[in-house]
């Protein structure tokens, strides 16, 4: 028994040292970490390298974690900062919801930030360096093909907390091009995480929080307003493309709706939503998430006075396809079901298009719900 324990302790130690070493060597550039399927054995038994990317088995990662948590809590007890900082990386890779490890890192970052934030004349260099490295670390975990890690509420909030520390200073010390690049890079990170973990609630929630915060700060930095609006519009177009490639991703569609509600020009909103509708109709797509987007967009009022244009489009389409459908088929038809939902959703229909309600009275299924 003792020999087995000893062997396991050694394995734990080595697994940790390998992973820790790996992290220490890639502090300044984002790498990809993947979990190896059980059938693949790295030659040294620990990490499988592919350029700067790495594969690790669940078993080795778990052993490294057990060693890491031991070192972390010992480090806390004896005030060994380096040990805590290093081991917290391995802890968070295995267990991204480990708030104690995440909070430790926040404390360290905050300490440096506070020390240097008294100086308004220039950006603090040590904090900037640490911030960059922390973002690299977060990118590595959040954008790697790690199913559980890429959706972590703890890590997405950690990222927001970090960005929020320096965002208010951005307007003072950053040129517009860098500001624009930074925001676009954040969306790219969310895209990647959204692909590794579909319907990634917290990644998209991070994107929302970032937009809301950026808008709050723009109030005090009006000269950035134009570039911010350009970036937000570019986010909206990129998001539309992303959603079309991932039509079953409810979180993506939900975020697109959020972005559209912020587009000032209603006609631009209509253009995008029409584009999505035609995509759905022409390809006869049945994805529930896509149709939830369409029905909500049409009913929720974000189209304002242009609502009837797209409602008419949907009604004409439903009329055309319903003519040859059985009752059962109609109740399974995405456009028909969506129209039914819209007409029973209590949406505010404008005077000019009230006549169109006659249509719903000609289709039996729709009659049941619209009265």
């Amino acid at each position, binding site marked *: 028994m003792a020999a087995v324990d000893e062997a396991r302790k050694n394995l734990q130690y080595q697994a940790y040292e390998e992973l820790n070493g790996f992290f220490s060597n890639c502090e300044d550039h984002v790498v990809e970490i993947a979990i190896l399927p059980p059938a693949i054995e790295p030659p040294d038994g620990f990490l499988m390298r592919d350029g700067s990317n790495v594969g690790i088995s669940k078993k080795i990662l778990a052993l490294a974690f057990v060693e890491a948590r031991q070192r972390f809590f010992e480090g806390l007890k004896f005030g060994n900062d380096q040990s805590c900082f290093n081991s917290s990386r391995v802890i968070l890779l295995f267990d991204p919801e480990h708030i104690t490890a995440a909070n430790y890192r926040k404390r360290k970052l905050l300490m440096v930030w506070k020390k240097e934030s008294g100086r308004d004349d220039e950006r603090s260099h040590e904090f900037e360096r640490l911030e960059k490295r922390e973002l690299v670390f977060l990118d590595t975990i959040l954008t790697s093909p790690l199913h559980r890690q890429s959706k972590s509420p703890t890590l997405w909030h950690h990222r*927001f907390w970090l960005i929020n520390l320096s965002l208010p200073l951005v307007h003072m010390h950053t040129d517009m091009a860098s500001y624009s690049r930074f925001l676009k890079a954040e969306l790219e990170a969310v895209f990647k995480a959204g692909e590794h973990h579909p319907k990634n609630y917290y990644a998209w929630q991070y994107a929302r929080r970032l937009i809301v915060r950026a808008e709050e700060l723009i109030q005090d930095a009006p000269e950035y307003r134009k570039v911010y609006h350009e970036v937000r519009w570019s986010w909206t177009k990129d998001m539309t493309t992303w959603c079309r490639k991932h039509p079953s991703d409810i979180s993506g569609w939900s975020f697109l709706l959020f972005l559209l509600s912020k587009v000032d020009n209603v006609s631009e909103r209509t253009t995008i939503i029409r584009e999505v509708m035609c995509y759905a109709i022409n390809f006869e797509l049945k994805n529930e998430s896509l149709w939830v987007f369409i029905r909500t967009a049409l009913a929720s009022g974000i189209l304002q006075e242009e609502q009837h244009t797209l409602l008419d489009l949907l009604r004409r389409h439903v009329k055309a396809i319903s003519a040859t459908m059985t009752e059962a088929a109609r109740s399974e038809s995405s456009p028909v079901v969506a129209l039914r939902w819209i007409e029973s959703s209590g949406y505010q229909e404008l005077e000019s298009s009230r006549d169109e309600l006659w249509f719903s009275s000609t289709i039996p299924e729709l009659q049941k719900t619209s009265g």
Partner: protein
Amino acid sequence: MALVSGPGRGGVAELPAEMRLFVDKHVHYIQSLDSRKDELEYWLTEHLRLNGLYWGLTALHLLGHPDALPRQGILDFVCSCLHENGGIGAAPGHDAHMLYTVSGVQILATLDAFADLEARVPGGRQKIAKYIADLQDPETGTFAGDEWGEQDTRFLYGALNALSLMGQLHLVNVDRAVAHIQSCANFDGGYGTSPGAESHSGQIFTCVAALTIAGRLDLVDQDKLGAWLSERQLKNGGLNGRPEKKEDVCYSWWVLSSLAMLNKLHWIDGEKLAAFILQCQDTELGGIADRPGDMVDVFHTVFGIAGLSLLKYPGLVEVDPI
């Protein structure tokens, strides 16, 4: 469905084996969780130890075996997670957070142990209540999870739940919290983590439950939300959390109890759901998984059982939806 009764299963099961809840197996499963002190598993789930204890304890109570875990041992553990500021962590040495503080309070309430707490930690109850109350954002009315500021309606619900269990709701601005929930209402009738966030069954549960505690269910668009929730049932009887997500046993609680609070339990097919939950059991070693065939865990065990209780499965302690 054919009637199957295996050898050695003494007594006559009124229900076919596929519709049977293996109570004893689940009790043993939960009891075994704490005994794995040397196993890897124990360390790997340390960050939610207290939550796990709450889930296990609740499941045992629902199964009619409230004494299957040692009371003193549990109280010792809760107290060992209590910080000086009244916050509770997931395990000894772990940072305090609303999520674990709420689990701690729920455990104490389940064991009717606030007096025991006071005996060990004078003023303990007040300290915990103050920790929770101080996390309210006075402007927006919502709650942060801890000093690092993440705001989420989950924490709002947790706070109102724990404070009401301790009779300390007066420490917070309930009206403002209610106003915040209203600001999180989406067009589809659902709720998210904050205003404008995506509707999600878990968040819907927290918002509806918080409004129930505050006595303001009148603010919910009940028909619309009921409709959105009823769309969660899939052909296999299971419930999902959002459109196009897979079925998952834990939604038997989040979605079902939301419907129960809205008096719309009948808007989903209860029989099909019960059958689905039962298929998620590990009938050999006990415990319930997120869907049939997957690994069990205590989280899905408690929520599967709670779902069955709401569906009035025989022999279970009834969960009060309010």
